[in-house]
């Protein structure tokens, strides 16, 4: 199990750079995420699985980037499906570590990386 930031924002080409947004990336990496926090999926995004692609399609123009759609890797998709607005991050990490037989530290790192990325893109919110 390894999430490793495989979460791509897909943007229509308009001649701009297609690299990581460094400043935003640093800000997200330094974001503190409490393990007792409960993540909820945004109601304004639709999850799709088509063949081997996992896609998040924003609905509203108030999404972080109206021209973007988002692509998850398989681990990202598994984490997404565990987010139900009721379970805390600690509970999700525990479930994933057990289901996929990985060390809790590894599961925690994957989940926190994922949550930082998606929170930064307003695709999930923490409460």
């Amino acid at each position, binding site marked *: 199990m390894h999430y490793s930031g495989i979460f*791509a924002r897909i943007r229509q*080409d308009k001649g701009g750079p297609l690299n*990581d947004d460094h400043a935003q990336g640093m800000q*997200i990496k330094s974001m503190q995420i409490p393990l007792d926090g409960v993540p909820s999926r945004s109601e304004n995004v639709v999850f799709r699985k*088509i063949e081997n692609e996992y896609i998040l399609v924003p609905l509203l123009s108030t999404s972080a980037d109206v021209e973007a759609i988002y692509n998850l890797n398989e681990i990202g998709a598994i984490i997404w499906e565990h987010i139900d607005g009721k379970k805390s991050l600690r509970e999700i990490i525990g479930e994933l570590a057990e289901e996929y037989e990985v060390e809790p530290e590894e599961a925690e790192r994957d989940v926190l990386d994922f949550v930082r990325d998606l929170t930064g893109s307003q695709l999930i919110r923490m409460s």
Partner: protein
Amino acid sequence: MKTESYADFSLRMHDASVGGRIPVNAAIELTYRCNNNCVHCYCSLPMGDEAASQKELATAEITELVDELASMGTLWLLITGGEPLLRGDFGEIYLHAKKRGLLVSFFTNGTLVDDDMVGLLAKYPPFVAEVTLYGATEETYEKVTRVKGSYRRCIEGIGSLRRAGIPLRLKTMALTINQHEVEAMDRRAAEWGCEFRFDPVIQKRIDGRVHSTPERYRISPEDAVRLDRTFPKRMQEYERFCAKFVGPPAVSERLYRCGTGVSSLHINPYGMISGCSMMVREAFSVRQKGLRWIWEEGIRSVISGKKTFSLPCDTCRLVNLCGQCPAWSVLENSSYDRESGYLCGIAKTRERSHAFLRQEAG
């Protein structure tokens, strides 16, 4: 977070959809009726045509189809017509498709864009809205649409969409009566910050009606080539396309050699489903057979059908350039076994005129 180009993602999705035979692209015509009366249109009916209206798919039938498309893996949905905004349920259908996670685009003539529509689109933006311009001046535009006041309404509609920040592209069909304004339309689009494209290929009516004859407005092959040359970017794209696709065609026993019905399907206003809008003979009624049967059995049988005749196109190096296909043959000649001389003429004139296409240029 990583950022990936849309082109790379799109290519990956299309490759996956071909391998898995998934209808990743779908188009639905909500109506053939239109508030314009364009001289060149291959499908339009009067907006008050009650008989046509009665036959059209109902809102619930369309939203059920959208649900089924989403479950089958469709990602890109094009809503078109006729004029799709003529239907009072356009907004409901559009929003339903958005909420199923489809990337929804629509084609419109722009004349029916009102405040409610702009509000909806501003809140739930389309993947792209594409408006057809028929001229750069009122006189030319309305010579094509044959409706007084349509130019002003179209320009106002484009203005409303632009002000609301809706992703917008413009296009035109190059006709005998508006070809002199194609460059001006391109300049206007650039002023508005919109991409612009044109198409010089006019098809005959798909319903065989004789009350209009789009083919009378086809520009000559020489004029099509002249327009090609007017747009350097178009020429560059063309050259790249030709480098890849012009050459001896692959030997195939199949009637349909294009990708139709492999990763795309088309739904007409009356629920007839086929691989593309021109395949009028090989369409199946969703009211008699379900969408899944049509995709998995009906369209599959059409695209795997064998060819039982030969055409000069079978060995022509330009076949991928001209777009010759059995559906075109049927529309042009009411028969599969005669090629379209019209398409052939344009391709051969391009071959003579564009250095990168000549045999000796490789």
